[in-house]
């Protein structure tokens, strides 16, 4: 059979969830389990692993270590097979039933066929289909967040909470009363979106910076015009406790095309790329820029540039 890119992609999507846990796996065992030869398995993994002229800062997403008999993959991507759980299939079937009830007669045939296929798939799946850890995407870890449950309780009951919170870079935490509007994961961390009575405004609190929390008796209502999507921009909790300016960064041509691809932007004529990032946290700005060394330069604001220079002066190994 002629191999195609589509076939290779299917194999990759199947194998990565099996081995993408950062542990060693036997190549022969994985090849047997996925129904391919060892050579083909290694060839598929090399397609993902081989990069040339890789710049700094772009190696976090997938790491592949191919040994003589074993392979290790650390990945934030493809951890979930491109298949649905039984619960999701049932939800789809239910959704289609609702759609069918509201559809004109000439459209029901296709819906009925799809529902039939779904039912057949659901009936064929083993009872333990959903129990593989690989079938569950990791939204954000909850370990190390001792007050998450308490604040979820406050949100559920619409009761105010008193939290002790340490802002990024702050030496001392502050205590404040908040009305929780949402608790959401973003970029691998949980955030509480809440109205802060001390600062009289909507704020986003990183849950790992909450040092104490207790539910109060006072109740509150969530405003009808509140929107989580508006609060979290592009999957990142960017809104600042204190509104700040953006940060304009120029990435050198050595790394710019990777950034451009990630951000969906076009390169400048000289091959570099300049982006204005929302800046809620100056410490984040420092870390973001310095991870690229001399391949990223803060252009604005002046205060951030000065902060980078100040840090550079104090750094010496």
């Amino acid at each position, binding site marked *: 059979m002629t191999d195609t890119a589509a076939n290779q992609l299917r194999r990759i999507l199947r194998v990565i969830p099996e081995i993408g*846990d*950062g*542990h060693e796996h036997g190549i022969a065992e994985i090849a047997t389990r996925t129904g391919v030869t060892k050579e083909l398995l290694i060839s598929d993994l090399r397609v993902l692993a081989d990069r040339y002229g890789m710049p*700094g*800062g772009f*190696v*976090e997403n997938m*790491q*592949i*270590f*191919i*040994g003589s008999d074993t392979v*290790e993959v*650390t990945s934030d991507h493809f951890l979930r097979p491109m298949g649905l759980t039984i*619960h999701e299939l049932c939800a789809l079937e239910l959704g289609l039933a609702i759609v069918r009830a509201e559809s004109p007669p000439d459209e029901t045939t296709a819906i009925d066929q799809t529902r039939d296929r779904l039912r057949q798939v659901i009936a064929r799946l083993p009872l333990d289909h*959903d*129990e593989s*850890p690989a079938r*569950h*995407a*990791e*939204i954000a*870890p909850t*370990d190390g967040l001792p007050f998450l449950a308490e604040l979820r309780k406050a949100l559920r009951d619409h009761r105010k909470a008193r939290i002790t919170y*340490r802002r*990024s*870079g702050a030496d001392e935490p502050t205590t404040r009363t908040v009305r929780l509007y949402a608790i959401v994961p973003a970029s691998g961390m949980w955030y509480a979106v809440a109205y802060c009575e001390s600062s009289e405004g909507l704020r986003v609190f990183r849950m790992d*910076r909450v040092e104490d929390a207790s539910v109060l008796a006072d109740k509150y209502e969530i405003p009808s015009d509140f929107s989580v999507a508006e609060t979290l921009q592009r999957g990142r909790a960017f809104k600042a406790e204190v509104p700040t300016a953006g940060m304009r960064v120029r990435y050198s041509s050595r790394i710019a095309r990777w950034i451009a691809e990630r951000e969906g932007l076009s390169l400048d004529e000289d091959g570099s790329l300049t982006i204005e990032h929302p800046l809620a946290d100056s*410490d984040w700005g*420092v*870390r*973001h820029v*310095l*991870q*690229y*060394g*001399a391949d990223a*330069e803060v252009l604005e604001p002046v205060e951030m*540039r000065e902060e*980078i*220079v100040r*840090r*550079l*002066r*104090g*750094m*010496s*190994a």
Partner: protein
Amino acid sequence: MPPCEPKLQRKRPWDVRDVDANDAIVDFRNASGAAKAAARLGLVIEGAPDRRKFKFRRVDSFARWLFSFGGEAIPVAPESLVSEFNRLLDDTRTLYGASA
């Protein structure tokens, strides 16, 4: 529904390569939240509360990671890591002009 299974172990970019691992000693100076979290990834060194020991296989990747903490995580050993860190520092200081 069964609970989500967190990953038990996660390798960092600097710890994945087909070569032997090296030991690194890192000083954490006035560490803030992110650097404190980074310090927790290393092993405690008895008698040196601000130092941690790390394993790394990729000196460039490890040096860049330390560099991103802006002076709150400074490599002490081995020499290859210190040199790489200082090279990054020199290049970046040059980028920002003599004032850095």
